[in-house]
């Protein structure tokens, strides 16, 4: 390794690893407070809240996991995965909070579903007093989490299945199992799924972590009294009393332990089912009915249902944002008004803050990731990865405590620069995660070839490597942008409440009764990432050549 590479690799390592480790350390240090743990133990809400957290987190993860698996099985067997994936980007780009808000507008007693059925079917002239959204059992939260995590799991599975070498091997293994007499479905479950699911462990852990520790979604659609433990912790963190703050941090620690326990439990369950020998019992499964071939290549109905749900949510937000007077049980509003959008325009600082933070943090994260992947030795990269993923698995309520302490230390709390730091710490892992497969997979012979043609390293990077990786670069920047837009806790906590973003406005408004303004912000929260992804797709589109037919 040259001195140049050593110097820059070390610099990059310190730039990212230093703050991340400091944040993690500060977050964990805040847990060493015996009185806080005692207070938490004494708090009558803590235990029911923890039970709700475990119930909603585990139920949504199990549901999302098996529904995704079923979709993948159908997609793989019918060879319709490609088409299935085309619908994914929009779902992936939908922020959690926007989905939750839209779902509330659909499912609430005065929501669209009941409006559509009233009064002709239900006989209701007024919204019934049903607890359909912030229900005490957390069912709404489970639905919202499941709907949000399925696209994520499908997408991570797809990135595995789209690798040519892997796909071809699994296709031929799948075919081989069928020559042994296994039905196509059974062959998938016995041969492909065990290999695929093993590679989905980290995404699964992310889903589990999210389900157990989510705050913004739970605030909108989760149970209220008691709320989930993450929401309770967040409320304590915002308290003026320092002792209560410490209790909130301790609750974050409990969430981390709950995540660890749930992960171990999941692993144990997987191990048990693998050891049961069920997969090797030789049952071939029913042959597909003849004539089924004409139906192949069709996207599974359940996927259409999911897409329909997202479509309904987005429509609800769009209509809601321009709705004036809208008495129950009318299906459409009586009056259309641009008032909400006018108010969004009046406080365009909010949009400006959101955009500025998202652009800056995505750009920083992209620049760092490219420099790191280009310069750092592979062994360093492997060693750094666990540190980078800490923000993804540590409960967000705990992470913001660490972030806040670091910001205090650097006198950056309540300042734009502190917010940028907070956002970048969340954006960086995602950008690196999405960029590295393509960047590290880049054929090293191109570099040798370019050098043998007499070109130096910079010319190679600018003229060959980065243009060829344009798509991956643009896509990972868009992912970073979307992650930044969706940040709720860091924006409020590190910003000390002085900065509003589209997301904080949407979540805070969701508690109130201003349907149109809430819809407008939730809609914006969705539109901004979608625009970023569209821009990335345009920038990353392969070049169109004159006179070629492809």
């Amino acid at each position, binding site marked *: 390794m040259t001195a140049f590479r050593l110097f820059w690799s070390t610099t990059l390592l310190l730039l990212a690893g230093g703050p991340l480790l400091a944040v993690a350390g500060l977050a964990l240090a805040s847990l060493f407070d015996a009185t806080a743990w005692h207070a938490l133990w004494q708090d009558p809400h803590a235990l029911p809240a923890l039970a709700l957290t475990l119930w909603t987190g585990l139920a949504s993860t199990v549901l999302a996991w098996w529904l995704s698996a079923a979709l993948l099985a159908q997609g793989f067997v019918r060879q319709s995965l490609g088409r299935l994936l085309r619908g994914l980007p929009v779902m992936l780009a939908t922020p959690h909070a926007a989905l939750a808000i839209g779902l509330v507008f659909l499912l609430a007693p005065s929501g669209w579903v009941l409006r559509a059925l009233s009064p002709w079917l239900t006989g209701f002239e007024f919204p019934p007093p049903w607890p359909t959204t912030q229900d005490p059992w957390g069912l709404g939260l489970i639905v919202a989490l499941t709907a949000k995590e399925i696209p994520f799991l499908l997408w991570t599975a797809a990135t595995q299945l789209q690798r040519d070498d892997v796909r071809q091997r699994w296709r031929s293994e799948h075919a081989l199992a069928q020559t042994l007499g296994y039905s196509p479905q059974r062959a998938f479950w016995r041969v492909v799924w065990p290999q695929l699911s093993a590679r989905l462990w980290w995404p699964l852990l992310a889903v589990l972590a999210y389900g157990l520790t989510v705050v913004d979604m739970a605030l909108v659609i989760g149970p209220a009294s008691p709320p989930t433990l993450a929401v309770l912790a967040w409320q304590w963190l915002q308290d003026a009393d320092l002792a209560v703050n410490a209790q909130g941090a301790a609750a974050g620690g409990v969430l981390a332990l709950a995540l660890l326990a749930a992960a171990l439990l999941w692993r144990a369950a997987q191990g048990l089912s693998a050891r049961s020998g069920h997969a090797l019992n030789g049952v071939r499964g029913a042959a597909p009915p003849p004539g089924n071939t004409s139906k192949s290549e069709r996207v599974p109905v359940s996927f259409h249902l999911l897409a329909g749900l997202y479509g309904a949510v987005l429509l609800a937000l769009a209509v809601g944002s321009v709705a004036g007077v809208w008495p129950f049980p009318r299906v459409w509003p009586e009056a259309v008004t641009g008032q909400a959008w006018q108010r969004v325009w009046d406080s365009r600082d909010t949009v400006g803050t959101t955009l500025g933070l998202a652009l800056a943090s995505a750009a920083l994260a992209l620049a760092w990731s490219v420099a790191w992947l280009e310069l750092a*030795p*592979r*062994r360093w990269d492997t060693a750094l990865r666990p540190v980078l993923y800490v923000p993804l698995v540590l409960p967000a309520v705990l992470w913001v405590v660490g972030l806040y302490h670091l910001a205090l230390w650097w006198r950056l709390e309540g300042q734009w620069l502190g917010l940028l730091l907070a956002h970048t710490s969340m954006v960086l892992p995602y950008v690196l995660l999405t960029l590295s497969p393509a960047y590290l997979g880049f*054929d*090293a*012979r*191109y*570099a*040798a*070839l370019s*050098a*043998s*043609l*007499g*070109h*130096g390293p910079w010319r190679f990077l600018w*003229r*060959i490597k980065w*243009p*060829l990786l*344009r798509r991956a670069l643009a896509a990972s920047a868009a992912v970073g942008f979307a992650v930044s837009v969706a940040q709720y806790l860091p924006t409020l906590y590190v910003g000390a409440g002085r900065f509003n973003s589209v997301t904080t406005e949407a979540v805070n408004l969701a508690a109130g009764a201003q349907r149109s303004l809430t819809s407008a912000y939730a809609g914006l929260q969705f539109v901004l990432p979608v625009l970023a992804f569209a821009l990335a797709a345009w920038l990353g589109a*392969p*070049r169109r*050549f*004159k*006179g*070629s*037919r*492809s």
Partner: protein
Amino acid sequence: MTLQVHITQLGSAQRVLLKDLRFTVQPGHILTLMGPSGSGKSSVLAAIAGTLNHVAEGAQALRAQVSVQLNGQDIGALPTAQRGVGLLFQDPLLFAHLTVAENLLFAVPPGPRTQRWAQVQQALTEASLQGYGERDPATLSGGQRARVALMRALLAQPKALLLDEPFSKLDAALRDQFRAFVFDHIRARQIPAVLVTHDTADIAEPEHVMQLNHAG
């Protein structure tokens, strides 16, 4: 121009691939290096071109103690870009974001625009690819792509050419054609070349063949 190579030792930290390999290639001649896979054939070429660090990184990083002389000048310490050694791989590795002509232009040394383009047109003609300049390289056939890859390597005006199994991915009929095409160009330009292969049919000059075996 003569290529003189002396590799004292080549290998990773764990094992030595080969020791004390020396050969000299005269202008217009093609030395064929043969050996089983894993014998370090390709690494010899990488050591000559100075691209060992590009090709193998990480745990199996290869190191070579090598002296390379081109026309009496020691180039072993120069960066790849200044060695004047051209490379041709198994895959044509045409840059997918550039047209066929732009791929070629990337190799032409700096100079007046019209002259550089004239060289590109000349190269296209030599490869029987007139009118293909504006095409997306992905739309060319395997044989056409292979010819473009050779022309691109030659347009950089290399003082020696290294061929890393460039025929192995072509089907039989194309392979004979392309092999003759490559050898003709090397002889016409009077540059030394080293060819690595495991196929005896590829041997260029039966009197210039070296067999590599496991050294350790």
